[in-house]
C-alpha cells in the first residue's frame, strides 16, 4: 500500500476529486482518502446540480463567475465524459410583491459586481418557459446560469484523476492529523499512518473533527436536504429554477427526469442529519409547491426520493484557504448547500494553494479566520 506522497486529499467528493485532478495535471503526486465505500457519496452526489451565479453571496461570486466563464463550458471535453452541462439560464420565481422586492435586491447586488441579472415579468417568463402557472408574476433572469449532472461530474473528476495516477483509497477513516516540528506531515487513519508534505481537507461536514485534531475550528453544522426525482418526460425546458419563497428548486435532466429539491421548514432539527434519511413530510411538501408553479407536472410520477446533508457554515459561505499557523494544511469545506456549481473553480484554487501558489481567483471573503463575535 502506498503511504507516502506529495499531497493527501481527504474526501473524494467533487471538491476533493477535482483538487486531486488539478494537482495531478500539474505533475503532483496525490493520494485521496475516502471514509465511505463509495466515491462522492456525500453532498457531491446529493444536490440539485445548479451551476448558478445569480442569488449567490458576493464573497463566492468570483468563483461562480470564473467557473461559468472558464471551466464548465469545456469540462466534458477536458474530463472525457459528458457531465451534461446546460447553460440555458436561471429563473428565480416570485408570486407576490414581497417576493419581487427580495428578487430585485438579489439582482441589484449581483449586477453591482458585473453579473448580467435582470427582473422580468410574467409574460416574459412564459416566453422562456411556457409551462409556468399564471400565479407567477415575476422573476429574476440570469441567462448565463445553468445546470449539470452532479453524479456524472463527480465521477468524471474521479475517473480522470485516477487515469492520471491519483491513488484512491475508500473505506478508510481519518482519525486525526499529525504534526512533525509544527508542520502537518501525517494523516493517521483506521488503516495506518500516511505521510505527506501537504494535506487538503475537503471532507464536507466531516472536515470539522479532522481540523479540530490540530486545533482549527470552522463553525459549521449538518443540515438535511430532501429531493424528489420524477419519471422521464419529453424535454420541456432546460432552465434552472428557484423561487423567492425558497419552497422548491430544480431542473429537467438530459435523461428526461426532473430533479426537485425543497424544504419543509424543519430541516435544522432533523434527527441524525448525517445519516441522510429522507424525512416523511418533505416529498409531499415539494410536490405541493411544484403544483403551484407547474400544474402541467401534476400527473408526472415520482420514482424516487433521497436526502443529503449540507455542511452549513455559520455565515453561509465556504472556507477556502491555507491555514496560516500550520504549514502544510489547506481547507475547502462548509459549502453550505451551494458548492456544486463552484466546485471546479474552488478545486482549482485549492490545488493552487496546495502547490504554494497564489490563488488565481479572489477568495478573500472565504478565509478560515473570519468568524468573529458580533460587534
Amino acid at each position, binding site marked *: *500500500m502506498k503511504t507516502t506522497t506529495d499531497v493527501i486529499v481527504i474526501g473524494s467528493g467533487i471538491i476533493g476529486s477535482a483538487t486531486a485532478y488539478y494537482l495531478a495535471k500539474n505533475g503532483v503526486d496525490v493520494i485521496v482518502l475516502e471514509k465511505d*465505500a*463509495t*466515491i*462522492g*457519496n456525500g453532498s457531491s*452526489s446529493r444536490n440539485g446540480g445548479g451551476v448558478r451565479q445569480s442569488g449567490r453571496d458576493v464573497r463566492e461570486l468570483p468563483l461562480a463567475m470564473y467557473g461559468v466563464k472558464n471551466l464548465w463550458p469545456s469540462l466534458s471535453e477536458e474530463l472525457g465524459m459528458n457531465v451534461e452541462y446546460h447553460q440555458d439560464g436561471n429563473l428565480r420565481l416570485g408570486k407576490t410583491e414581497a417576493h419581487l422586492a427580495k428578487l430585485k435586491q438579489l439582482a441589484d447586488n449581483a449586477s453591482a459586481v458585473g453579473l448580467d441579472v435582470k427582473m422580468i415579468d410574467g409574460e416574459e417568463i412564459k416566453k422562456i418557459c411556457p409551462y409556468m402557472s399564471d400565479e407567477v408574476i415575476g422573476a429574476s433572469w440570469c441567462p448565463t446560469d445553468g445546470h449539470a449532472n452532479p*453524479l*456524472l461530474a*463527480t*465521477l468524471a473528476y*474521479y*475517473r480522470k484523476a*485516477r487515469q492520471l495516477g491519483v*491513488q*484512491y*483509497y*475508500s*473505506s*478508510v477513516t481519518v482519525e486525526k492529523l499529525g504534526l512533525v516540528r509544527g508542520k502537518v506531515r501525517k494523516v493517521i487513519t483506521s*488503516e495506518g499512518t500516511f505521510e505527506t508534505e501537504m494535506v487538503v481537507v475537503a471532507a464536507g461536514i466531516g472536515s470539522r473533527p479532522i481540523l479540530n485534531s490540530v486545533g482549527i475550528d470552522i463553525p459549521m453544522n449538518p443540515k438535511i436536504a430532501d429531493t*424528489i426525482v*420524477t*419519471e*422521464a418526460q419529453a424535454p420541456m425546458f432546460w432552465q434552472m429554477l428557484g423561487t423567492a419563497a425558497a419552497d422548491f428548486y430544480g431542473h429537467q435532466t438530459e*435523461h428526461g427526469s426532473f430533479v426537485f429539491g425543497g424544504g419543509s421548514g424543519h430541516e435544522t432539527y432533523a434527527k441524525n442529519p448525517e445519516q441522510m434519511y*429522507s424525512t416523511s*413530510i418533505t*416529498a*409531499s411538501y415539494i*410536490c*405541493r409547491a*411544484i*403544483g403551484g408553479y407547474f400544474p402541467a*407536472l*401534476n*400527473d*408526472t*410520477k*415520482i*420514482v*424516487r*426520493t*433521497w436526502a443529503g446533508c449540507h455542511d452549513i457554515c455559520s455565515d453561509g459561505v465556504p472556507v477556502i484557504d491555507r491555514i496560516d499557523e500550520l504549514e502544510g494544511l489547506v481547507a475547502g469545506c462548509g459549502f453550505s448547500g451551494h458548492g456544486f456549481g463552484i466546485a471546479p473553480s474552488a478545486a482549482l484554487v485549492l490545488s493552487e494553494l496546495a502547490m504554494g501558489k497564489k490563488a488565481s481567483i479572489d477568495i478573500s471573503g472565504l478565509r478560515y479566520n473570519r468568524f468573529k463575535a458580533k460587534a
Partner: protein
Amino acid sequence: MEKLQDRFADIGEFIPQQDDDVIVCRCEEITKGEIRKAVHEGIFTIGEMRRYLRNGMGLCQGQTCGKMVKGIMARELGIRPMDLTPATARAPMRPMEMKILANDRSGD
C-alpha cells in the same frame, strides 16, 4: 464493501464477452458489457454504478436487475456478491403521481 478498497487494485484487463450486448437493466437499457467496462474504469460499488450508468434508476428502481448487476460486478472484481452493499431502497415503493403524493394532509 466495508473493507479498505485500493482503487488501483489489479482486476485484470477488460475482455469482451459474447453476451456483452445483453440488456441487464430494462428500464434504462443498460447492457452487461457497459457494466463490466465501467468496473474497469474504476466504478467499484453499486452506488457508483447507478450514478455512472443509471442502471436501477428507472421505473422499477432496480427491483428487477439489482441482483444481476451485483453478480456481474462481483465476478468482474473477483469478490463475492455479498461483499457488495446493495443500493439503498428509496420511497415510494411504486411510482406515484405528484398530485397524489402532494395530498398527504387530510382536510385540505
